[in-house]
């Protein structure tokens, strides 16, 4: 695997909501097979960045490149077809459908055949160890299973880039370990490049090859986990805040 292959690049992104600058001149790139972390305090613009990359809404300024190709005013479904899949910070299950059916909706991206989609969905569920829950409806699932189901659904589209928005936060320690293991498993077995937004620092440090730190829409640091955890600006604006709040 060539580490220098860039699968996704966002250049000089700016996003304004009225007078508020949610993202301010932020660029990122994702290497093939990499797990990239996007961290920062609440309101830093992490999820906004995901929404721009996934095509939920356009950036005010800046450009998105997938495999070196400029994506012009992307819409969600077009980004999905280009191989970008995502999960949501606040889960969005198809609550009347079962876990299997939810996953099949993803699998239908690459097939028109119901049986093929069902087989593909079962495969994914087996990889994520969710096959036991296949027939449970979205509305009857616990939070951890909802989060795993969203990952299953996204993976069923056979993405090359996966955006995971806080799949670990909100879970108990057992659940966390399970999902951390799942994420590194996905990278290894499926060769998917991943960006994660996460507040659970232990998980970020363990999983990520590189980390971007955002604060108020601006990049304040970029680097390997160890560099980040000792970075003054990061401790000031993010890691330190927690300790302060705890006192």
């Amino acid at each position, binding site marked *: 695997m060539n580490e220098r292959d860039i699968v996704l690049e966002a250049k000089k992104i700016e996003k304004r909501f009225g007078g508020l600058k949610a993202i301010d001149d932020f660029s990122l790139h994702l290497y093939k097979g990499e797990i990239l972390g996007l*961290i920062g*305090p*609440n309101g830093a613009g992490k999820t906004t960045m995901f929404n721009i990359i*996934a095509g*939920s809404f356009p950036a005010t300024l800046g450009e998105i490149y997938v495999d070196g190709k400029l994506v012009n005013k992307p819409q*969600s*479904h077009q*980004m*999905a*077809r280009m191989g970008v*899949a*995502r999960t*949501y910070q606040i889960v*969005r*299950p*198809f*609550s*009347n*459908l079962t876990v299997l*059916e939810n996953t*099949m*909706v*993803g699998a*239908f*991206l690459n*097939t*028109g*055949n*119901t049986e093929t*989609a069902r087989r593909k969905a079962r495969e994914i569920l087996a990889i994520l160890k969710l096959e*036991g*829950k296949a027939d*449970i409806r*979205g509305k*009857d*699932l*616990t*939070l*951890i*299973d909802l989060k795993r189901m969203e990952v299953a*659904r*996204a993976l*069923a*589209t056979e993405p090359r880039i996966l955006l995971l928005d806080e799949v670990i*936060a*909100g*879970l*108990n320690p*057992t*659940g966390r370990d*399970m999902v951390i293991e799942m994420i590194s498993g996905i990278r290894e077995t499926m060769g998917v490049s991943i960006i994660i937004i996460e*507040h659970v*620092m*232990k998980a970020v440090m363990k999983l990520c090859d590189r980390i971007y730190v955002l604060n108020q829409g601006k990049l304040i640091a970029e680097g390997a986990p160890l560099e980040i955890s000792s970075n003054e600006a990061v401790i000031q604006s*993010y*890691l330190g*805040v*927690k*300790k302060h*709040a705890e006192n």
Partner: protein
Amino acid sequence: MKKLSKNNVWMLIAFAVAVILPNTTKSSSVLQIMVVTMMYAFFTTAWNISGGYAGQLGLGNGVYIGIGAYITGILFNELHVSPWFGLLAGGVFAAIISLGMGSFTFKLQGTYYSLATVALLAILRIFLNENRYIMGWDFGGPAGLKTKWLGVSFQNMQFMDKRIYYYIALGFLMISLLACWHTSRSKSGYYFRAIDTNQEAAASLGVNVMQYKLQAQFISALLMGMGGGFYVAFYQFIDTETMFNFELSFQTMLMAVIGGRATVFGPAVAACLLIPFNELLRRYFGTALPGLPMLLYGLILMATIQFMPQGVIPFISEKLERRKAGERARLPINGPEPGAETKGEANTDE
């Protein structure tokens, strides 16, 4: 497998009953109720594809039924086109109109979409009331359009024996049930239901939401337009008041909601129970207590929404499902690791 064959047996029984039923009576008015029941079952099943599966709660369905009816009627009166072809033309025209309307109303969501469809009803009613002659053809204006009686003929879809209308309506119902059944197990059906529950999540999985909404609306409008053609052939009279008022449109939607949206048989079953019930009430109490049928209808609707918000059929099948699952194993539904901590900021624990 066992469950499937059991369902098949029920379907066969229902079909056999439907076939035999009109031969059990000589009463013209009872037959009339049967035809109307089949027709409404057809309308509501047709609506179910866009309104049920794709979740687009359109209230202006009378538009498509009305367009189909007027096209069929006018082609028959002015150009002597057989209603069999007329209803196809009506269906196709209604479907094309639905694409035009959908491309701007589908940008609206939820209640706003429903309200926009109501506006379309009013527009069409006023337009046809004000324009009696269009291209020199007599649409009847507010007085209504009466089709010419040319004597009993299959080609003109004019019969004295109401049983024939019944079987034609039954045939249409079968077509729409097949369309629903096929939808429920196809890629489109999965996409429709995904759009219904969470549009944004559907888009993130590559579903072109607009395209699939239009597709659902197209199928529903096509079928409803064809049904409109049957409507005019059966009643031999339509006017703007019956086609474009709320009753026809609301009934179509309500039966699907009561029976169970996005189930193949729910809407048709509800129609088969509610239409005869409504007609009987109207017959026996219509003169003594004119408001009673509507009152009871309202009560049924309230009770359904209160106790079975998903509709009767899903409610029953879920009950059965639960009971079966309970018998199989008394395991808790959820995994061993429930619970969630509140999300903290910068969770640096150990």
